[in-house]
């Protein structure tokens, strides 16, 4: 390949990557701009790529008329608590799978794989009845419980992967120095693992924050709705309030994007945690 051809190839690559970058980011920009446009401008043709005048009326409307504050708080509580519990269970379970040889270890891994294979739909009806029997329908605690149950396998497997990167020698050295196994874990292993633990927490948080299917199944009352459930009901038969919907979308996307910046390095682990060999 001569010099000119190489330059052409590099330029072509840059153009394609740049175009896809635009495709990726522009919808996010578009929803932000739409949320700041006055109603009259949202559907004006030709399209306005920048609001003529910036307004926060849709955000005000969302919080004054639509109870969005309640949904926001519900989503935060459910996601934070569920992700916290999931991470704690994952820290213990992952350590167990990575460091202990015990009878039934194979069965546990198999159970995990089975959980990943079964479509959620099969369990949905009985889960609903179970929640109903336990009087946990329309309660945040019920939703948290289901989220924890659904995410524990994922958190355990991803934590196991992180533990396996920490040399066993590190713990053994501490134990030789007289520390008990528990102390060795808390003082030596956990500090090394902190970034991984944070990543697991954030993955779990985002899963709960974004989840619609289970939430819409178990939550029907206004005071227990999470953001996705509320957003799903914004599209009504006769009226779509695009401005408020855009504002709600911006609020729903914001926390996940901020958290994402913190876990960039762990994306691959998070994506493939379900695909490990047992």
């Amino acid at each position: 390949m001569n010099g000119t051809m190489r330059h052409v190839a590099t330029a072509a690559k840059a153009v394609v990557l740049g175009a896809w970058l635009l495709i990726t980011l522009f919808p996010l920009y578009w929803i932000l701009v739409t949320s700041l446009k006055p109603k009259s401008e949202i559907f004006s043709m030709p399209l306005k790529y920048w609001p003529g005048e910036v307004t926060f009326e849709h955000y005000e409307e969302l919080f004054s008329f639509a109870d969005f504050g309640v949904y926001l708080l519900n989503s935060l509580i459910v996601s934070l608590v569920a992700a916290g519990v999931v991470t704690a269970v994952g820290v213990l379970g992952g350590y167990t799978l990575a460091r202990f040889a015990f009878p039934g270890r194979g069965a546990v891994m198999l159970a995990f794989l089975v959980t990943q294979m079964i479509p959620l739909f099969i369990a949905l009806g009985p889960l609903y009845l179970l929640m109903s029997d336990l009087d946990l329908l329309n309660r945040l605690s019920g939703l948290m419980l289901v989220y924890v149950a659904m995410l524990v396998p994922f958190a355990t497997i991803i934590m196991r992967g992180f533990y396996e990167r920490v040399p066993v020698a590190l713990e053994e050295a501490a134990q030789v120095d007289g520390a008990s196994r528990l102390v060795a874990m808390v003082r030596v292993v956990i500090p090394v693992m902190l970034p991984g633990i944070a990543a697991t927490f954030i993955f779990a948080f985002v899963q709960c924050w974004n989840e619609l299917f289970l939430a819409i199944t178990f939550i029907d009352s206004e005071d227990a709705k999470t953001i996705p459930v509320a957003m799903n009901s914004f599209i009504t038969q006769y009226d779509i309030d695009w401005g408020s919907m855009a504002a709600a979308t911006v609020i729903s996307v914001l926390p996940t994007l901020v958290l994402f910046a913190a876990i960039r390095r762990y994306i691959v682990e998070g994506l493939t945690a379900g695909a490990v060999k047992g």
Partner: protein
Amino acid sequence: MRFVETRAALLFISPWILGFLIFTAWPVINSAYLSLTDYDVINDPSFVGFDNYKTLFEDPKVGLALRNTFIFMVMSVPTQLVVSLGLALLLNSATRATGFFRTAFFLPKMTPPVAVGILLLMLFNGQSGLINGFLGIFGIDGPAWTTDPNWVKPGLVLMSLWTVGSSVVIILAALRGVPQELYDSAVVDGAGWWKRTLRITVPMISPTLFFLFIVDSINALQSFTEAYTAFFGSGNTTYSNDAALFYAIYLFQQAFEFLHMGYASALAWLLFIVIMAITVVQILVTRRFVHYEGGNP
């Protein structure tokens, strides 16, 4: 020591075992039983044998929903795979800002699926959407993506490409694992970029592509949220559209709108069987093309 270790292990792992028994094993068994009953949540389930399964084959909506879901899978899975492979190859050969692009491409995957459904309605709106506005620049009169039955699925497929970033990241990680020596010797032998890509890169990352192919297909067969939000939101009949009635949506409607729990359970088992059958066929057909370093397992 061994006993202590086993006891500790079981203690640490017990939340998972409990969760598995209560929230997976029991519901699955119960669902198999429910699928043989007539059950409306209010009255006790009454046993009806295989009636629900017989009804499945006579219900025209089941056929429609299955057809919609298959068409969506056949359209979206290969498109996603080709686009993500292309982007990953470009990123892999780029020298600068790879990390930035990787991060940026992944962003849509962090967006709530409900928001993706809403974005679809806004971007693909026939009169005032961004897509048709863009096409208008070139004098193209874009279709009514969200209302014309023929264009609903293509719109959903295009929207699904927006979240292709996770596949790009996985393929990119696999590309990084291909040994450089292979390329070096191929260059010595005079192989051009295309030849190297087709003969070395693709075979070397074929286990990853195969994994994505299977996982994407299983996910496509269970598609729910984006289409449900865009076309079946509560009270939403303006946009609801038979063309977007995916199998999972129909199942959900049967369970929670019509309260046919027994029938919905039978629907769920049919979906499970279909997913299993398709996965097995895919594995059998594509296994020949997958190259595992160190021999096939």
